[in-house]
Protein backbone atom coordinates (compact mmCIF):
# COMPACT_ATOMS: atom_id res chain seq x y z
CA UNK A 1 0.00 0.00 0.00
CA UNK A 2 2.94 2.36 0.37
CA UNK A 3 4.23 4.83 -2.14
CA UNK A 4 7.62 3.15 -2.12
CA UNK A 5 6.11 0.09 -3.68
CA UNK A 6 5.36 2.06 -6.83
CA UNK A 7 7.86 2.24 -9.63
CA UNK A 8 7.42 5.77 -10.87
CA UNK A 9 6.54 7.56 -7.62
CA UNK A 10 3.11 8.52 -8.94
CA UNK A 11 0.94 9.83 -6.09
CA UNK A 12 -2.13 10.84 -8.07
CA UNK A 13 -3.23 8.68 -10.98
CA UNK A 14 -6.58 9.27 -12.66
CA UNK A 15 -7.50 6.84 -15.39
CA UNK A 16 -10.43 7.92 -17.61
CA UNK A 17 -12.29 9.35 -14.65
CA UNK A 18 -15.82 10.74 -14.73
CA UNK A 19 -17.32 12.62 -11.77
CA UNK A 20 -20.94 13.66 -11.43
CA UNK A 21 -22.66 15.87 -8.85
CA UNK A 22 -25.67 14.39 -7.15
CA UNK A 23 -28.77 15.23 -9.16
CA UNK A 24 -26.83 16.57 -12.16
CA UNK A 25 -27.69 15.06 -15.52
CA UNK A 26 -24.23 15.31 -17.06
CA UNK A 27 -20.89 14.48 -15.49
CA UNK A 28 -18.82 17.49 -14.47
CA UNK A 29 -15.43 15.80 -14.95
CA UNK A 30 -15.36 13.87 -18.21
CA UNK A 31 -12.89 11.19 -19.24
CA UNK A 32 -9.99 12.78 -17.43
CA UNK A 33 -6.64 11.02 -17.11
CA UNK A 34 -3.53 12.38 -15.45
CA UNK A 35 -0.48 11.35 -13.47
CA UNK A 36 1.17 13.46 -10.79
CA UNK A 37 4.44 12.34 -9.25
CA UNK A 38 5.61 12.70 -5.68
CA UNK A 39 7.09 16.11 -4.88
CA UNK A 40 5.72 17.78 -8.00
CA UNK A 41 4.49 21.36 -7.89
CA UNK A 42 1.30 21.45 -9.91
CA UNK A 43 -0.72 24.48 -11.02
CA UNK A 44 -4.28 23.91 -12.22
CA UNK A 45 -5.62 26.68 -14.43
CA UNK A 46 -8.70 27.26 -16.52
CA UNK A 47 -11.74 29.51 -16.65
CA UNK A 48 -14.44 29.77 -13.98
CA UNK A 49 -16.64 26.71 -14.04
CA UNK A 50 -14.02 24.59 -15.81
CA UNK A 51 -14.14 21.98 -13.04
CA UNK A 52 -10.98 22.80 -11.08
CA UNK A 53 -12.62 22.56 -7.66
CA UNK A 54 -14.47 19.46 -8.81
CA UNK A 55 -11.16 17.89 -9.83
CA UNK A 56 -9.65 18.54 -6.38
CA UNK A 57 -12.68 16.99 -4.68
CA UNK A 58 -12.44 14.02 -7.02
CA UNK A 59 -8.82 13.50 -6.07
CA UNK A 60 -9.55 13.50 -2.34
CA UNK A 61 -12.59 11.28 -2.69
CA UNK A 62 -15.23 13.77 -1.58
CA UNK A 63 -17.10 13.38 -4.87
CA UNK A 64 -18.03 9.98 -6.27
CA UNK A 65 -16.25 8.70 -9.36
CA UNK A 66 -18.87 7.31 -11.72
CA UNK A 67 -16.49 5.74 -14.27
CA UNK A 68 -12.77 5.13 -14.44
CA UNK A 69 -10.20 4.50 -11.76
CA UNK A 70 -8.25 6.67 -9.35
CA UNK A 71 -5.22 5.73 -7.30
CA UNK A 72 -4.13 8.26 -4.68
CA UNK A 73 -1.01 7.74 -2.55
CA UNK A 74 -1.02 4.14 -3.70
CA UNK A 75 -4.57 3.56 -2.50
CA UNK A 76 -7.40 2.84 -4.89
CA UNK A 77 -10.06 5.47 -4.37
CA UNK A 78 -13.13 3.47 -3.41
CA UNK A 79 -15.88 3.65 -0.85
CA UNK A 80 -15.98 6.86 1.16
CA UNK A 81 -12.30 7.65 0.55
CA UNK A 82 -11.66 8.52 4.18
CA UNK A 83 -8.23 6.83 4.13
CA UNK A 84 -7.17 8.97 1.22
CA UNK A 85 -8.29 12.14 2.99
CA UNK A 86 -6.19 11.26 6.02
CA UNK A 87 -3.13 11.66 3.76
CA UNK A 88 -4.32 14.45 1.50
CA UNK A 89 -4.74 18.03 2.70
CA UNK A 90 -7.41 20.20 1.09
CA UNK A 91 -7.85 23.94 1.47
CA UNK A 92 -11.41 24.73 0.37
CA UNK A 93 -12.10 27.68 -1.90
CA UNK A 94 -15.05 29.25 -0.12
CA UNK A 95 -15.63 29.47 3.58
CA UNK A 96 -17.33 31.80 6.00
CA UNK A 97 -17.30 31.51 9.76
CA UNK A 98 -19.71 33.30 12.02
CA UNK A 99 -18.08 35.58 14.62
CA UNK A 100 -19.91 33.44 17.18
CA UNK A 101 -18.26 30.21 16.04
CA UNK A 102 -17.01 28.73 19.32
CA UNK A 103 -13.67 27.51 17.94
CA UNK A 104 -10.33 29.19 18.40
CA UNK A 105 -7.48 29.19 15.90
CA UNK A 106 -5.77 26.47 17.95
CA UNK A 107 -8.93 24.31 17.93
CA UNK A 108 -9.20 24.56 14.17
CA UNK A 109 -5.54 23.75 13.56
CA UNK A 110 -5.80 20.79 15.94
CA UNK A 111 -8.70 19.43 13.90
CA UNK A 112 -6.19 18.81 11.13
CA UNK A 113 -4.81 16.01 13.30
CA UNK A 114 -8.16 14.36 14.03
CA UNK A 115 -8.52 12.37 10.80
CA UNK A 116 -5.18 10.64 11.28
CA UNK A 117 -6.08 9.73 14.87
CA UNK A 118 -9.22 7.85 13.89
CA UNK A 119 -12.18 7.15 16.16
CA UNK A 120 -11.64 6.61 19.91
CA UNK A 121 -8.10 8.05 20.04
CA UNK A 122 -7.54 11.30 21.88
CA UNK A 123 -4.98 13.84 20.71
CA UNK A 124 -1.69 13.59 22.56
CA UNK A 125 1.47 15.65 23.00
CA UNK A 126 2.70 14.94 19.47
CA UNK A 127 -0.55 16.29 18.07
CA UNK A 128 -0.41 19.48 20.12
CA UNK A 129 3.20 19.99 19.06
CA UNK A 130 2.35 19.50 15.39
CA UNK A 131 -0.45 22.05 15.70
CA UNK A 132 1.84 24.60 17.38
CA UNK A 133 4.45 24.12 14.66
CA UNK A 134 1.87 24.52 11.91
CA UNK A 135 0.61 27.75 13.49
CA UNK A 136 4.17 29.07 13.71
CA UNK A 137 4.95 28.31 10.09
CA UNK A 138 1.93 30.37 9.04
CA UNK A 139 2.60 33.11 11.60
CA UNK A 140 -0.76 32.71 13.31
CA UNK A 141 0.55 31.50 16.69
CA UNK A 142 -0.23 34.87 18.31
CA UNK A 143 -3.88 34.43 17.40
CA UNK A 144 -4.08 30.91 18.82
CA UNK A 145 -6.77 31.75 21.36
CA UNK A 146 -8.93 33.99 19.20
CA UNK A 147 -12.18 32.54 17.79
CA UNK A 148 -11.63 31.95 14.08
CA UNK A 149 -14.78 33.86 13.12
CA UNK A 150 -13.30 37.04 14.56
CA UNK A 151 -10.32 37.07 12.16
CA UNK A 152 -10.08 38.67 8.74
CA UNK A 153 -10.58 36.58 5.61
CA UNK A 154 -6.85 36.37 4.91
CA UNK A 155 -6.07 35.42 8.50
CA UNK A 156 -8.73 32.70 8.34
CA UNK A 157 -7.15 31.41 5.15
CA UNK A 158 -3.78 31.12 6.90
CA UNK A 159 -5.40 29.24 9.76
CA UNK A 160 -6.97 26.77 7.34
CA UNK A 161 -3.60 26.26 5.65
CA UNK A 162 -2.07 25.62 9.09
CA UNK A 163 -4.91 23.14 9.75
CA UNK A 164 -3.85 21.26 6.63
CA UNK A 165 -0.13 21.42 7.44
CA UNK A 166 -0.77 20.02 10.91
CA UNK A 167 -1.80 16.72 9.39
CA UNK A 168 1.55 16.25 7.60
CA UNK A 169 -0.12 15.55 4.28
CA UNK A 170 1.53 13.59 1.49
CA UNK A 171 -0.43 15.62 -1.03
CA UNK A 172 -1.68 19.15 -0.48
CA UNK A 173 -4.60 20.40 -2.54
CA UNK A 174 -5.08 24.17 -2.38
CA UNK A 175 -8.02 25.90 -4.04
CA UNK A 176 -6.99 29.50 -4.73
CA UNK A 177 -4.88 29.81 -1.58
CA UNK A 178 -3.63 33.28 -2.48
CA UNK A 179 -6.98 34.92 -3.17
CA UNK A 180 -7.32 36.64 0.22
CA UNK A 181 -3.66 37.16 1.04
CA UNK A 182 -1.52 40.29 1.14
CA UNK A 183 1.82 40.47 -0.70
CA UNK A 184 3.91 39.35 2.25
CA UNK A 185 1.61 36.49 3.09
CA UNK A 186 1.73 35.30 -0.52
CA UNK A 187 5.50 35.27 -0.46
CA UNK A 188 5.62 33.53 2.86
CA UNK A 189 3.21 30.83 1.78
CA UNK A 190 4.95 30.37 -1.55
CA UNK A 191 8.22 29.76 0.29
CA UNK A 192 6.45 27.38 2.62
CA UNK A 193 4.95 25.40 -0.25
CA UNK A 194 8.31 25.29 -1.99
CA UNK A 195 10.01 23.89 1.09
CA UNK A 196 7.25 21.31 1.43
CA UNK A 197 7.71 20.28 -2.20
CA UNK A 198 11.45 19.90 -1.54
CA UNK A 199 10.61 17.54 1.30
CA UNK A 200 8.58 15.43 -1.12
CA UNK A 201 5.08 16.72 -0.44
CA UNK A 202 3.12 16.98 -3.66
CA UNK A 203 1.61 20.43 -4.05
CA UNK A 204 -1.45 20.88 -6.26
CA UNK A 205 -2.73 24.44 -6.49
CA UNK A 206 -5.66 25.98 -8.30
CA UNK A 207 -4.47 29.50 -8.95
CA UNK A 208 -4.63 32.41 -11.30
CA UNK A 209 -1.58 34.11 -9.78
CA UNK A 210 1.70 33.11 -11.37
CA UNK A 211 4.18 35.59 -9.91
CA UNK A 212 5.26 33.83 -6.74
CA UNK A 213 6.11 30.45 -8.22
CA UNK A 214 9.13 28.60 -6.83
CA UNK A 215 12.26 28.14 -8.88
CA UNK A 216 11.61 24.57 -9.96
CA UNK A 217 9.78 22.83 -12.80
CA UNK A 218 6.05 23.51 -12.68
CA UNK A 219 3.53 20.92 -13.83
CA UNK A 220 0.66 22.77 -15.50
CA UNK A 221 -2.83 21.36 -15.95
CA UNK A 222 -5.34 23.49 -17.79
CA UNK A 223 -8.98 22.54 -17.61
CA UNK A 224 -11.96 23.48 -19.67
CA UNK A 225 -15.47 22.05 -19.62
CA UNK A 226 -14.52 19.27 -17.24
CA UNK A 227 -11.62 17.95 -19.30
CA UNK A 228 -7.90 18.51 -19.42
CA UNK A 229 -6.89 20.60 -22.41
CA UNK A 230 -3.24 21.00 -21.51
CA UNK A 231 -0.82 18.94 -19.45
CA UNK A 232 2.82 19.92 -19.50
CA UNK A 233 5.81 20.78 -17.36
CA UNK A 234 7.77 23.99 -17.81
CA UNK A 235 9.94 26.58 -16.07
CA UNK A 236 8.18 28.90 -13.60
CA UNK A 237 8.69 31.87 -15.91
CA UNK A 238 6.78 30.20 -18.74
CA UNK A 239 3.70 29.21 -16.77
CA UNK A 240 1.61 32.27 -17.56
CA UNK A 241 2.38 32.03 -21.29
CA UNK A 242 1.50 28.32 -21.32
CA UNK A 243 -1.80 28.87 -19.55
CA UNK A 244 -2.69 31.77 -21.83
CA UNK A 245 -1.80 29.83 -24.95
CA UNK A 246 -3.90 26.83 -24.02
CA UNK A 247 -6.94 28.81 -22.90
CA UNK A 248 -6.96 30.99 -26.00
Amino acid sequence: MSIHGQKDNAVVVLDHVFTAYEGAEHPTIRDLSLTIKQGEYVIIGGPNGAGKTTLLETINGMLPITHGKATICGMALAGDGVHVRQKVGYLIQNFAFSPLTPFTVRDVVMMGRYGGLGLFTRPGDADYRAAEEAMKSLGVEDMADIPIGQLSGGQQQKVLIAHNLAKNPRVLLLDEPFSNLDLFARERISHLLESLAKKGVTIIIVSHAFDDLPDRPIHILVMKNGTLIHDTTCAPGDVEAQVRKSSA
Partner: protein
Amino acid sequence: MLEFLIQNNIVCHAVEAMLFASIACSVLAVVITQINISSIGFTMAHAAFAGAAVGIFFSINATLAAILAGLIVAVLLGPLSERAKISPDTALGVMFGMTMAIAIFFIAYMQSLGRGFDASGLMFGDVVSLFREEIYGLAVISIVTILFIIIFYKEITAIIFNQKIAEAAGIRVRPVYYAMLFMIALTVALCINIIGGLLLYVWLVTPAAIAVQFCNSIKQMFIVAPIIGAIVSVSGALTGLEYGLPVSPLTAVLFSILFAAAIILSPRRRISMRKE
Protein backbone atom coordinates in the same frame (compact mmCIF):
# COMPACT_ATOMS: atom_id res chain seq x y z
CA MET B 1 -32.39 8.03 43.63
CA LEU B 2 -32.67 11.40 45.32
CA GLU B 3 -34.88 10.16 48.18
CA PHE B 4 -32.24 11.19 50.70
CA LEU B 5 -32.75 14.82 49.63
CA ILE B 6 -36.47 14.98 48.99
CA GLN B 7 -38.82 13.20 51.40
CA ASN B 8 -41.99 13.43 49.30
CA ASN B 9 -41.95 10.55 46.86
CA ILE B 10 -43.93 12.25 44.11
CA VAL B 11 -41.83 15.41 44.24
CA CYS B 12 -38.68 13.34 44.34
CA HIS B 13 -39.58 11.37 41.22
CA ALA B 14 -40.65 14.51 39.41
CA VAL B 15 -37.35 16.22 40.20
CA GLU B 16 -35.38 13.17 39.13
CA ALA B 17 -37.28 12.91 35.85
CA MET B 18 -36.84 16.59 35.04
CA LEU B 19 -33.18 16.52 36.03
CA PHE B 20 -32.26 13.60 33.80
CA ALA B 21 -34.46 14.65 30.89
CA SER B 22 -33.06 18.17 30.95
CA ILE B 23 -29.44 17.01 31.07
CA ALA B 24 -29.87 14.73 28.04
CA CYS B 25 -31.82 17.34 26.10
CA SER B 26 -29.50 20.25 26.94
CA VAL B 27 -26.37 18.38 25.89
CA LEU B 28 -28.02 17.53 22.58
CA ALA B 29 -29.29 21.10 22.33
CA VAL B 30 -25.68 22.26 22.00
CA VAL B 31 -25.22 19.93 19.03
CA ILE B 32 -28.59 20.81 17.49
CA THR B 33 -28.19 24.58 17.70
CA GLN B 34 -24.55 24.58 16.67
CA ILE B 35 -25.01 22.43 13.55
CA ASN B 36 -28.12 24.43 12.71
CA ILE B 37 -30.42 21.45 12.62
CA SER B 38 -33.03 22.95 14.94
CA SER B 39 -35.69 22.11 12.39
CA ILE B 40 -34.66 18.47 12.57
CA GLY B 41 -34.90 18.50 16.35
CA PHE B 42 -38.29 20.12 15.99
CA THR B 43 -39.53 17.55 13.50
CA MET B 44 -38.16 14.65 15.51
CA ALA B 45 -39.89 15.88 18.64
CA HIS B 46 -43.18 15.97 16.80
CA ALA B 47 -42.61 12.64 15.10
CA ALA B 48 -42.00 11.05 18.48
CA PHE B 49 -45.16 12.78 19.67
CA ALA B 50 -47.15 11.30 16.78
CA GLY B 51 -45.54 7.89 17.33
CA ALA B 52 -46.47 7.93 21.01
CA ALA B 53 -50.05 8.96 20.21
CA VAL B 54 -50.36 6.08 17.76
CA GLY B 55 -48.81 3.77 20.35
CA ILE B 56 -51.29 4.76 23.03
CA PHE B 57 -54.22 4.48 20.64
CA PHE B 58 -53.33 0.93 19.67
CA SER B 59 -52.31 0.14 23.27
CA ILE B 60 -48.76 -0.76 22.28
CA ASN B 61 -45.71 0.59 24.07
CA ALA B 62 -45.83 4.35 23.53
CA THR B 63 -42.12 4.86 24.13
CA LEU B 64 -41.18 2.19 21.59
CA ALA B 65 -43.57 3.69 19.06
CA ALA B 66 -42.05 7.12 19.70
CA ILE B 67 -38.50 5.80 19.27
CA LEU B 68 -39.53 4.14 16.03
CA ALA B 69 -41.11 7.34 14.69
CA GLY B 70 -38.04 9.37 15.64
CA LEU B 71 -35.76 6.89 13.90
CA ILE B 72 -37.87 6.98 10.75
CA VAL B 73 -37.45 10.76 10.67
CA ALA B 74 -33.70 10.39 11.23
CA VAL B 75 -33.43 7.96 8.32
CA LEU B 76 -35.58 10.10 6.04
CA LEU B 77 -34.09 13.47 6.92
CA GLY B 78 -30.47 12.55 7.55
CA PRO B 79 -29.50 12.43 3.87
CA LEU B 80 -31.26 15.74 3.24
CA SER B 81 -29.56 17.58 6.07
CA GLU B 82 -26.12 16.10 5.54
CA ARG B 83 -23.65 18.59 4.11
CA ALA B 84 -26.65 20.86 3.56
CA LYS B 85 -26.91 19.42 0.06
CA ILE B 86 -30.53 20.29 -0.41
CA SER B 87 -32.38 22.80 1.68
CA PRO B 88 -34.37 20.49 3.90
CA ASP B 89 -36.85 23.21 4.82
CA THR B 90 -39.61 22.08 2.52
CA ALA B 91 -39.23 18.41 3.35
CA LEU B 92 -39.24 19.28 7.06
CA GLY B 93 -42.28 21.48 6.66
CA VAL B 94 -44.18 18.64 5.01
CA MET B 95 -43.00 16.12 7.57
CA PHE B 96 -43.80 18.41 10.48
CA GLY B 97 -47.33 18.99 9.18
CA MET B 98 -47.81 15.29 8.69
CA THR B 99 -46.60 14.28 12.16
CA MET B 100 -48.72 16.96 13.83
CA ALA B 101 -51.73 15.80 11.83
CA ILE B 102 -51.19 12.18 12.87
CA ALA B 103 -50.70 13.13 16.51
CA ILE B 104 -53.73 15.41 16.65
CA PHE B 105 -55.89 12.92 14.76
CA PHE B 106 -55.29 10.16 17.26
CA ILE B 107 -55.46 12.41 20.30
CA ALA B 108 -58.71 14.00 19.17
CA TYR B 109 -60.14 10.60 18.33
CA MET B 110 -59.16 9.24 21.72
CA GLN B 111 -60.83 12.21 23.36
CA SER B 112 -64.02 11.54 21.46
CA LEU B 113 -63.82 7.94 22.70
CA GLY B 114 -63.45 9.18 26.26
CA ARG B 115 -59.77 8.22 26.46
CA GLY B 116 -58.54 11.80 26.50
CA PHE B 117 -56.73 11.43 29.80
CA ASP B 118 -54.24 9.00 28.25
CA ALA B 119 -53.10 11.60 25.80
CA SER B 120 -52.95 14.85 27.75
CA GLY B 121 -49.62 13.92 29.32
CA LEU B 122 -48.27 13.40 25.84
CA MET B 123 -49.11 16.92 24.86
CA PHE B 124 -48.28 18.91 27.95
CA GLY B 125 -46.05 16.58 29.91
CA ASP B 126 -46.64 14.75 33.15
CA VAL B 127 -44.11 14.53 35.93
CA VAL B 128 -46.40 13.01 38.51
CA SER B 129 -47.53 9.64 37.22
CA LEU B 130 -44.20 8.14 36.23
CA PHE B 131 -43.03 4.58 36.49
CA ARG B 132 -39.77 3.90 38.26
CA GLU B 133 -38.49 2.29 35.03
CA GLU B 134 -39.08 5.52 33.15
CA ILE B 135 -36.86 7.39 35.57
CA TYR B 136 -34.15 4.76 35.28
CA GLY B 137 -34.47 4.98 31.52
CA LEU B 138 -33.98 8.74 31.68
CA ALA B 139 -30.98 8.38 33.98
CA VAL B 140 -29.43 5.94 31.54
CA ILE B 141 -30.09 8.12 28.50
CA SER B 142 -28.59 11.19 30.16
CA ILE B 143 -25.44 9.25 31.00
CA VAL B 144 -25.29 7.70 27.53
CA THR B 145 -25.67 11.13 25.94
CA ILE B 146 -22.79 12.53 27.97
CA LEU B 147 -20.63 9.50 27.19
CA PHE B 148 -21.48 9.81 23.52
CA ILE B 149 -20.24 13.40 23.48
CA ILE B 150 -17.07 12.51 25.40
CA ILE B 151 -16.23 9.47 23.25
CA PHE B 152 -16.82 11.21 19.92
CA TYR B 153 -15.73 14.66 21.07
CA LYS B 154 -13.20 15.13 18.23
CA GLU B 155 -15.63 14.12 15.54
CA ILE B 156 -18.62 15.98 16.97
CA THR B 157 -16.74 19.24 17.46
CA ALA B 158 -15.24 19.04 13.98
CA ILE B 159 -18.68 18.43 12.47
CA ILE B 160 -20.05 21.36 14.47
CA PHE B 161 -17.23 23.56 13.19
CA ASN B 162 -17.72 22.77 9.50
CA GLN B 163 -18.90 19.51 7.97
CA LYS B 164 -16.99 19.97 4.76
CA ILE B 165 -13.70 20.77 6.48
CA ALA B 166 -14.26 17.85 8.85
CA GLU B 167 -14.80 15.52 5.92
CA ALA B 168 -11.73 16.85 4.08
CA ALA B 169 -9.68 16.32 7.24
CA GLY B 170 -10.34 12.58 6.97
CA ILE B 171 -12.84 12.44 9.81
CA ARG B 172 -15.61 9.85 9.58
CA VAL B 173 -18.42 12.33 9.40
CA ARG B 174 -21.32 10.17 8.27
CA PRO B 175 -21.42 7.48 10.96
CA VAL B 176 -21.02 10.06 13.71
CA TYR B 177 -23.63 12.34 12.18
CA TYR B 178 -26.15 9.51 11.98
CA ALA B 179 -25.30 8.38 15.50
CA MET B 180 -26.06 11.94 16.59
CA LEU B 181 -29.49 11.86 14.91
CA PHE B 182 -30.09 8.47 16.52
CA MET B 183 -29.26 9.86 19.97
CA ILE B 184 -31.64 12.76 19.43
CA ALA B 185 -34.43 10.40 18.35
CA LEU B 186 -33.89 8.19 21.38
CA THR B 187 -33.75 11.08 23.85
CA VAL B 188 -36.78 12.78 22.40
CA ALA B 189 -38.80 9.56 22.61
CA LEU B 190 -37.89 8.98 26.25
CA CYS B 191 -38.60 12.57 27.30
CA ILE B 192 -41.92 13.01 25.55
CA ASN B 193 -44.03 11.74 28.47
CA ILE B 194 -42.39 14.02 30.98
CA ILE B 195 -42.03 17.23 29.05
CA GLY B 196 -44.81 16.80 26.51
CA GLY B 197 -44.68 16.70 22.73
CA LEU B 198 -45.72 20.31 22.30
CA LEU B 199 -42.96 21.72 24.52
CA LEU B 200 -40.06 19.32 24.11
CA TYR B 201 -38.57 21.56 21.47
CA VAL B 202 -37.84 24.20 24.12
CA TRP B 203 -35.46 21.78 25.89
CA LEU B 204 -33.76 20.94 22.61
CA VAL B 205 -32.86 24.54 21.83
CA THR B 206 -33.17 27.06 24.66
CA PRO B 207 -30.57 25.77 27.16
CA ALA B 208 -27.92 25.98 24.43
CA ALA B 209 -29.24 29.32 23.20
CA ILE B 210 -28.78 30.69 26.73
CA ALA B 211 -25.34 29.09 27.19
CA VAL B 212 -23.98 30.44 23.92
CA GLN B 213 -24.45 33.97 25.18
CA PHE B 214 -21.85 33.41 27.88
CA CYS B 215 -19.52 30.75 26.48
CA ASN B 216 -16.52 31.20 24.22
CA SER B 217 -15.75 27.58 23.59
CA ILE B 218 -17.72 24.53 22.65
CA LYS B 219 -16.39 22.74 25.73
CA GLN B 220 -17.86 25.42 28.00
CA MET B 221 -21.16 25.12 26.15
CA PHE B 222 -21.32 21.37 26.72
CA ILE B 223 -20.85 22.01 30.43
CA VAL B 224 -22.92 25.16 30.92
CA ALA B 225 -25.98 24.19 28.85
CA PRO B 226 -26.88 21.07 30.87
CA ILE B 227 -26.24 22.95 34.14
CA ILE B 228 -28.64 25.69 33.05
CA GLY B 229 -31.11 23.09 31.78
CA ALA B 230 -30.97 21.14 35.02
CA ILE B 231 -31.29 24.18 37.32
CA VAL B 232 -34.24 25.61 35.42
CA SER B 233 -36.01 22.26 35.08
CA VAL B 234 -35.58 21.28 38.72
CA SER B 235 -36.72 24.74 39.86
CA GLY B 236 -39.70 24.44 37.53
CA ALA B 237 -40.60 21.05 38.95
CA LEU B 238 -40.29 22.16 42.58
CA THR B 239 -42.23 25.40 42.04
CA GLY B 240 -44.91 23.75 39.94
CA LEU B 241 -45.56 20.98 42.44
CA GLU B 242 -45.44 23.35 45.42
CA TYR B 243 -48.08 25.68 43.97
CA GLY B 244 -50.05 23.14 41.92
CA LEU B 245 -49.04 24.59 38.54
CA PRO B 246 -48.44 22.53 35.39
CA VAL B 247 -44.72 21.76 35.60
CA SER B 248 -43.63 21.49 32.00
CA PRO B 249 -45.30 24.67 30.67
CA LEU B 250 -44.11 26.58 33.72
CA THR B 251 -40.53 25.42 33.12
CA ALA B 252 -40.74 26.28 29.43
CA VAL B 253 -41.78 29.81 30.38
CA LEU B 254 -38.90 30.02 32.87
CA PHE B 255 -36.52 29.01 30.07
CA SER B 256 -37.83 31.75 27.83
CA ILE B 257 -37.54 34.41 30.54
CA LEU B 258 -33.98 33.33 31.23
CA PHE B 259 -33.21 33.45 27.53
CA ALA B 260 -34.48 37.02 27.31
CA ALA B 261 -32.39 37.96 30.34
CA ALA B 262 -29.33 36.26 28.81
CA ILE B 263 -29.71 38.23 25.60
CA ILE B 264 -29.93 41.48 27.54
CA LEU B 265 -26.99 40.68 29.83
CA SER B 266 -24.83 38.98 27.24
CA PRO B 267 -21.27 40.28 27.09
CA ARG B 268 -21.44 39.64 23.35
CA ARG B 269 -23.64 42.66 22.89
CA ARG B 270 -21.41 45.10 24.71
CA ILE B 271 -19.52 47.65 22.66
CA SER B 272 -16.32 48.83 24.23
CA MET B 273 -15.91 52.60 24.55
CA ARG B 274 -12.18 52.39 25.05
CA LYS B 275 -10.02 54.53 22.79
CA GLU B 276 -7.20 52.02 22.53
